[in-house]
């Protein structure tokens, strides 16, 4: 049976382990999930661990900026910025094991980067070269999902399979505040609770679903919905990378120990537009962005790391250098990505050959040959023409 908890952080302030000025506050429930990053585990290089999280956040932000720049220069068709959400994405990603499986939305580019995606695979779909990038079974991460909330059901089904296999893998699905209004997200919580599936619902409440503020989606804090389904939930500061790391670790532990699903609402902010096609100045106040800049996830973590002597100018410079190098490599890979062959559009529709499709492909190939070879060049090879 489910043993859901109505925990702190449902109303009022979300759970915070790092305040915006970079001060680490002890937390009775979560400190045990941060023993390594707090330096309480022998043999763990605390500084290296913290710097790896810090660098991922810095590089992810730079990748995001590069994506926007590439779109502005016509190299990408579209880009969905995640600037401002680095703590939620990198913090949770660092909690997830290599054998765990992730079902993301389309905005989890920071998660994919931290999970080790090849750089061209971060932009392939946004350039229009394919509908997806990375190999899902190499990354243990599904292709990005564009239909809002649809992936949460896939995550629960995968987790049901894990359960039936008797495995210890856990599953994490990412979605936004807008998605919580979708039937699929609600159905996924019904299924997850009924089957006690080992799944973590990680909701990045970034306050905006394109132009709609979260108040249109939910009249109560989103985390409060989950207990109604019988799912433990928590509301955390999504700009606090340590809170994101700790809460995800806790939820994964619950999943792996057979105690079913969890729901995390990470309260964060979409500092950029919904996508590069969006113009937030039409619907939101510039002051709001200024307020959230005060809570910047990277500045906060950096202040904390400086206060404990893990980050200094040399570390900052190294992170910035790495970010620039990754961005340059991403740019190179994007600009030199070859276009797909026209005939390839008929591939992978079915697992095997399909006669109607083969006929269309053949006609298309003849048509192209005819156009390229000049009028009449295709006629001798066109069956209909011979009648």
């Amino acid at each position, binding site marked *: 049976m489910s043993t859901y908890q109505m925990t702190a952080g449902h109303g009022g302030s979300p759970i915070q382990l790092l305040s915006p000025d970079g001060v680490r506050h002890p937390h009775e429930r979560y400190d045990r999930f941060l023993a390594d990053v707090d330096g309480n585990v022998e043999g763990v290089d605390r500084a290296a661990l913290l710097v790896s999280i810090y660098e991922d956040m810095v590089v992810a932000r730079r990748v995001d900026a590069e994506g926007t720049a590439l779109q502005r220069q016509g190299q990408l068709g579209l880009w969905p910025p995640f600037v401002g959400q680095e703590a939620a994405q990198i913090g949770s990603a660092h909690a997830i094991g290599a054998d765990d499986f992730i079902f993301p939305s389309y905005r989890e580019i920071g998660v994919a980067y931290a999970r080790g995606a090849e750089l061209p695979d971060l932009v392939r779909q946004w350039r229009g070269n394919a509908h997806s990038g990375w190999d899902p079974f190499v990354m243990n991460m599904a292709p990005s999902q564009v239909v809002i909330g649809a992936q949460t*059901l896939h995550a629960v089904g995968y987790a*049901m399979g894990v359960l039936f296999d008797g495995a210890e893998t856990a599953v994490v699905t990412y979605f936004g505040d807008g998605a919580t209004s979708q039937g*699929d997200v609600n159905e996924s919580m019904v299924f997850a609770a009924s089957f006690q599936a080992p799944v973590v619902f990680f909701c990045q409440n970034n306050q905006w679903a394109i132009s709609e503020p979260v108040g249109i989606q939910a009249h109560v804090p989103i985390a409060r919905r989950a207990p109604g389904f019988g799912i433990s939930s928590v509301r955390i500061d999504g700009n606090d990378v340590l809170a994101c790391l700790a809460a995800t670790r806790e939820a994964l532990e619950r999943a792996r120990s057979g105690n079913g699903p969890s729901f995390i609402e990470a309260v964060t902010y979409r500092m950029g537009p919904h996508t590069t096609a969006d113009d937030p100045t039409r619907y939101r106040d510039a002051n709001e962005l200024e307020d959230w800049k005060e809570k910047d996830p990277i500045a906060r973590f950096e202040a904390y790391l400086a206060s404990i002597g893990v980050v200094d100018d040399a570390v900052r410079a190294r992170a910035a250098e790495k970010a620039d190098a990754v961005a340059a490599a991403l740019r190179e890979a994007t600009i030199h990505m070859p276009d797909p062959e026209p005939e390839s559009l008929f591939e992978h529709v079915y697992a095997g050959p399909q006669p109607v499709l083969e006929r269309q492909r053949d006609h298309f190939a003849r048509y192209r040959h005819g156009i390229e070879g000049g009028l009449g060049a295709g006629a001798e090879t066109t069956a209909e023409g011979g009648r």
Partner: protein
Amino acid sequence: MSEMTFAKALNAGLRKSMERDSKVVLMGEDIGKLGGVFRITDGLQKDFGAHRVIDTPLAESGIMGTAIGMAYRGYRPVIEIQFDGFVYPAFDQIVSQVAKLHFRSLGRIKVPLTIRIPFGGGIGSPEHHSESPEAYFVHTAGLRVVAVSNPQDAYSMIQQAIACDDPVVFFEPKRRYHDKGEVDETAGLEGPGGLDLGAARVLTEGTDVTLVGYGPLAKTCADAATAASDEGISVEAIDLRSLSPIDYATLEASVRKTGRLVIAHEASQTAGLGAEIAASITERCFYFLEHAPVRVTGFDVPYPHSKLEFFHLPDLDRILDGVDRAMGRPNSLSGTEEGE
């Protein structure tokens, strides 16, 4: 060979598939202890356990979406949609996910789902229980769509559909569930007479008219061929079996011989299977046609209340009237502009 009902043949085919592959799981509403509202899964949960015959919450999109997740994990889910009219809540997951994941992932993700849908009318049901939604799925690239018409095909094609690496929407004519027929239980994945999942079957050979039907109307088409022969008309009745892809090789060979084509289905006419087959056969066999293709279908109305459903459904006489039209014989439209 043994005689069994259509429903029992499906049950036997499902059992065979579950024995063959431990990754085959059944998912749906009321399919466990109850055995489904039509008893197609009768006894399977008792024999295979609740993890392989899964009673799900009442949420069709949820069933479809979680089945996709199980496919990611290596399972082969077989979904029972309780009635045709209840598939629409799952439509988004079918069209945007099931059908597209293989293409989206460049062939890396297989989605070998079998989506079983009892379809068609004629059983006196209330609204939403008698629909023929096959054209929506045929129009969706990435899906295979089949309609079974007899116990032998039910037994074999369900096994073929489950073994197929593509998603298959599997239409079962609910008014034929209690029909009995001989079933060769040695015909498993090879199919009866070696027919694969994509093949049409010639039911009666003929030389005057090609008559194409599927699902519940395959039997009606065969009956129409018999009735027509009494009047000296030689009808080649074809059970389409696979609605996507369509076995045009079999249809073309027949129409090149007969020069006339009649297509019958319960679904409404506009943009239905009849339209697609008529257009494709006209493109492929134009110089062989003696008459424009004729469609005999349900009307373009929402599925009617049961007191009127038999006026809506094509029956033997309406199909024979269509044959007469294709033959240029006196028929219900004679003397009208359309009949000329």
